[in-house]
């Protein structure tokens, strides 16, 4: 049976891993390579690395840091943030990315997404969709939550499907870092509207939140705060979900 994937998200700014609250208020929580090594040793099912400043400051990916992370990952590694050209894309796959995550380019450079899907396949392309649901309108924002796109979560997912994307990383801006639980309404709306696998992200603060997100329809559960501030680990999370009857990979 296919397992529910538990995916730590590393948010990267300048040289360190940070944790945000509602996409702002960043605090440094560690070094990228060490983080990757520990999550690999603890059997994280995948790792997502997002450079949260690259696109806002029009910088490209930090290839040196990404290369060092990739060396530690013998699990699928998704890279996102500031990927603006096919040269960036080729180089990221060359240094060890398995999937690339696009956010700003989905809305501003869809031709790039189509080209990457054509060259590397749907399974290598993730649409990172940042949703502000504080007004219950599921508004999609970009450039690290600072720019409105005019899309809702559902129309953005349709756009991603039309572009041939293989997976959705569904981020909740208003839950990010708050540890108040995933936006279950958002997860259910998106998973019912799309056949693409959905990685739920944003709001996880306790073990039961992961169970709720899975029951709401998420195919994979990503989190950050729970690892850094709550003291749960991949192992305690998986043991808990297994006890609750969910299929997880324990070994």
């Amino acid at each position, binding site marked *: 049976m296919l397992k529910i994937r538990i995916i730590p998200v590393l948010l990267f700014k300048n040289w360190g891993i940070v944790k945000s609250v509602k996409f702002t208020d960043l605090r440094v929580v560690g070094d990228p390579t060490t983080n990757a090594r520990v999550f690999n040793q603890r059997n994280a099912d995948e790792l997502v690395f997002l450079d949260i400043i690259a696109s806002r400051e029009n910088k490209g990916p930090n290839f040196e840091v990404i290369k060092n992370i990739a060396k530690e990952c013998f699990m699928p590694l998704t890279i996102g943030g500031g990927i603006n050209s096919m040269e960036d894309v080729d180089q990221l796959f060359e240094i060890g990315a398995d999937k690339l995550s696009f956010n700003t380019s989905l809305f501003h450079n869809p031709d790039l997404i189509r080209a990457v899907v054509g060259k590397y396949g749907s399974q290598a392309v993730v649409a990172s969709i940042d949703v502000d649901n504080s007004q219950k309108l599921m508004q999609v924002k970009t450039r690290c939550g600072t720019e409105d796109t005019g899309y809702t979560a559902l129309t953005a997912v349709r756009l991603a499907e039309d572009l041939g994307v293989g997976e959705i990383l569904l981020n909740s801006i208003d839950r990010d870092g708050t540890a108040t639980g995933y936006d279950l309404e958002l997860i259910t709306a998106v998973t019912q509207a799309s056949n*693409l696998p959905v990685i739920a992200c944003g709001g996880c603060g306790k073990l039961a939140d992961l169970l709720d997100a899975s029951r709401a329809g998420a195919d994979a559960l990503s989190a950050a705060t729970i690892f850094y501030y709550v003291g749960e680990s991949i192992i305690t999370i998986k043991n808990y979900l297994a006890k609750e009857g969910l299929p997880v990979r324990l070994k």
Partner: protein
Amino acid sequence: MSTQVVVIDYQMGNTCSVLKALNRLGVSHQLSANPDVIRDASHLILPGVGHFETGSRNLQVNNLNQLILEHANAKPLLGICLGMQLLFNSSAEAPGAPGLGLIDGHFDRFQVKLKVPHIGWNEIRGDNLPAIFKDIPSHTNFYFVHSYYAILNESLAVSETDYEINFVSAVQKNKIFGTQFHPEKSQSAGLKILKNFIEFN
């Protein structure tokens, strides 16, 4: 003959993770499409992510397909994911595009209620796991990403995996191995598979 692992460079997606895994295992290896290098390989790995048709076409460049067939006569060969699919005769993904025909069978697209592609960690099961599964128990999880599954005309399945249907997740014929999953992305169990393959003669 000393161990010289060659990963076939046929421009099918990302080979970096395979090279990284071989690096970690500390074995002598290189990525190459050079006929002389491929002829000298003790072990060949055919990796691959992407479309069957492109894979099939790229293997016809510079007679890579002939070189692989010659190698597989006498020496160990491992096909991973699309690389495993290309060991077979054909795939419904690209009717008419020839596989290597080393293993008699073809690939069909999943017709299941679950989401396709089958992405994530899933268990392999086998009563008689072969040499490359040494020290790996049945029910170990590996990482999969694929939309097509093997239909064999000969009984060469060594493991099965459940995704609404039971499908063949690994095959062996003499010194030819195929894994539908990605050992290079399957942490310690995956590295063990690669190590076992390299130690296989």
